[in-house]
């Protein structure tokens, strides 16, 4: 646990036109640990994740991976580094089926031809591991899936690959009781296998159940990055809603986005 961060961001700024969404944000993820990223609605969590994933270009700031400064100018760069992300808006192709979505961009082939059979097998196994029992057929278009089923497909898609950093943006929002438990277990297991996992969630129970560190965003500013064992439930909620809690948090509590 004394290892350095595998992923580190410093001084990230990001604006959409006149609206500045991220102010000088610093964030790190450590191998073998689950880092929870929390914050109110609209705090900038998803924006931060998209900056990490190369979906949005950052306006300024530094991006370190394994201690080296890197430039991530698109999702391909992030994937090449070994960062795998489940986005909040899922980003599935509605006109493709479950297997096709899960292997999109990384299809297995034998020669020129797609190896549909082995992809279907692997997809079936991964989904079964996530407690999905109501999917009628793996060849169903994702447009016909229920909200929770879609989310499961997106999660399965991301964990299928050997990556070093896995970021999950509200992965359990639409999941049922059993499926949520499976995903949390999976998150813990990934970290125990040495991966760096970032979990975004509004559910404090889940956050405290699995995470080692907690980073709290408040109106686009990083209010605090703390060890989960050193803070209480109530403190985190205060950080989320007010930007500070006692010693912790932003010095200047009214740091609203201009």
């Amino acid at each position, binding site marked *: 646990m004394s290892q350095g961060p595998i992923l580190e961001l410093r001084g990230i700024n990001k604006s959409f036109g006149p609206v500045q969404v991220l102010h000088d944000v610093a964030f790190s993820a450590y191998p073998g640990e689950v880092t929870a990223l929390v914050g109110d609605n609209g705090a900038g969590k998803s924006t931060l994740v998209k900056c990490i994933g190369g979906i949005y270009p950052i306006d300024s700031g530094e991006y370190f991976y394994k201690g080296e400064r890197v430039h991530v100018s698109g999702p391909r760069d992030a994937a090449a580094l070994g960062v795998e992300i489940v986005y909040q808006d899922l980003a599935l192709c509605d006109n493709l089926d479950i297997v096709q979505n899960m292997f999109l*961009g990384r299809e297995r*082939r034998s020669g020129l031809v797609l190896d549909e059979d082995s992809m279907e097998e692997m997809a079936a196994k991964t989904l*079964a591991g996530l407690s999905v029992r109501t999917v009628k057929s793996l060849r169903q278009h994702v447009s016909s899936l229920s909200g929770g089923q879609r989310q499961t497909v997106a999660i399965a898609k991301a964990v299928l690959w050997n990556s070093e950093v896995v970021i999950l943006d509200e992965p359990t929002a639409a999941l049922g009781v059993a499926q949520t438990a499976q995903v949390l277990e999976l998150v813990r297991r990934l970290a125990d296998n040495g991966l760096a996992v970032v979990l975004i969630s509004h559910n404090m129970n889940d956050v405290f159940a699995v995470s080692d560190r907690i980073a709290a965003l408040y109106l686009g500013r990083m209010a605090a990055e703390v060890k989960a064992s050193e803070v209480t439930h109530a403190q985190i909620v205060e950080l989320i809603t007010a930007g500070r809690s006692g010693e912790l948090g932003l010095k200047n509590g009214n740091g609203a986005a201009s």
Partner: protein
Amino acid sequence: MTTETLPKQENADSALGGHVKGYLERVKGGELGALPAVFGLVILCVVFSVLRPAFLSAVNFANLFTQGAAVAVIAMGLIFVLLLGEIDLSAGFASGVCAAVLAVLLTLQGWPWYLAVLAAMVTGAVIGLVLGSLVAKLGIPSFVVTLAAFLAFQGVVLLLVKDGTNISIRDETILAIANKNVPPVAGWIALIVGVAVYAAIQFVQARRRAGRGLVATPVAVIAARVATLAVVAGIAVYVLNLERSRNAALVSLKGVPIVVPLIVILLIVWTFVLRRTAYGRHIYAVGGNAEAARRAGINVDRIRISAFVICSFMASLGGIIAASRANSVDPNTGGSNVLLFAVGAAVIGGTSLFGGKGRALDALLGGAVVAVIENGMGLMGYSAGVKFVVTGLVLLLAAGVDALSRKRAAATGRS
């Protein structure tokens, strides 16, 4: 992680009966596939046959193929661009430019036919590369880029074939493409080989899936499919192998027109590319949700450019076929309604203009509808104005049959 696997829901009823039932239910449920277009086509053919018995003759059947070939080939290329939700207004005149290049090199420069054809095809590919780059890299809407190209290519054809004249094509090989037939025996052989290969592939695939414990198509179903293909294709080959010369003593005219195997090969190639390769998968992904594709690490720009390259390349083939059929190239080659008919063919076949939905086969089905309408209207003998009006109405009829059957199906929930 629990290791329970998904229940193999359908293995229970994998007998033929169950499969047929499943198919009927899927049809009822809206998964119509090619059915509506085929249905529209059949209605058209019946109407024309009743009004003009000549429509049903072997000659006319053969004519249908050569008449519709160029539009169908161009439409097949357009499918790629349409799958991305883009449009290529210039495909018609791109075919004209390529045909003009062919004619100039062949007739004026005296190149051998294979070099001239190669040059025409390269021209097509380069055109696609330029158009695609403008769309993908500069982000100009494809409608505008290809509208500009539509105008520019019109000019290029004029410059190549010199204002209002035309260039005759005399090379026998090129002329054969749209005007000669495959020897009847070769037609039968090709048919048998084709059906056999299809059957073999289907069986091997089913065996492999069954071996892995995945849901596989039952043997009975495969047998039924192979039989259907053999019968339909067999009838077509049989009819095309009938003597259709009006004066058989003077000249014998029988066999499958050369364009038919050409189109079948193109259909197989592009269907394979779209359905069985990663590239085809990525085309659908970009058309369905470009952002999702980008996030999945697909190089969206490259996919876009390549689709335009394929489209213009196919346009060049269409241009060569058109030049062969017309025995010449003039400034109108690829002009008038070629583009609209090609896009129309794709859409009638079931391809969506919004991207993400379409097959190579659509171009053929829709192209057949367009060709049948043109062919049938030619038999009716209307005056110009009436002919336009009736053609429009017939097109609407064909599309209406299609739309209504889809709509009925959609009422059960699918879209």
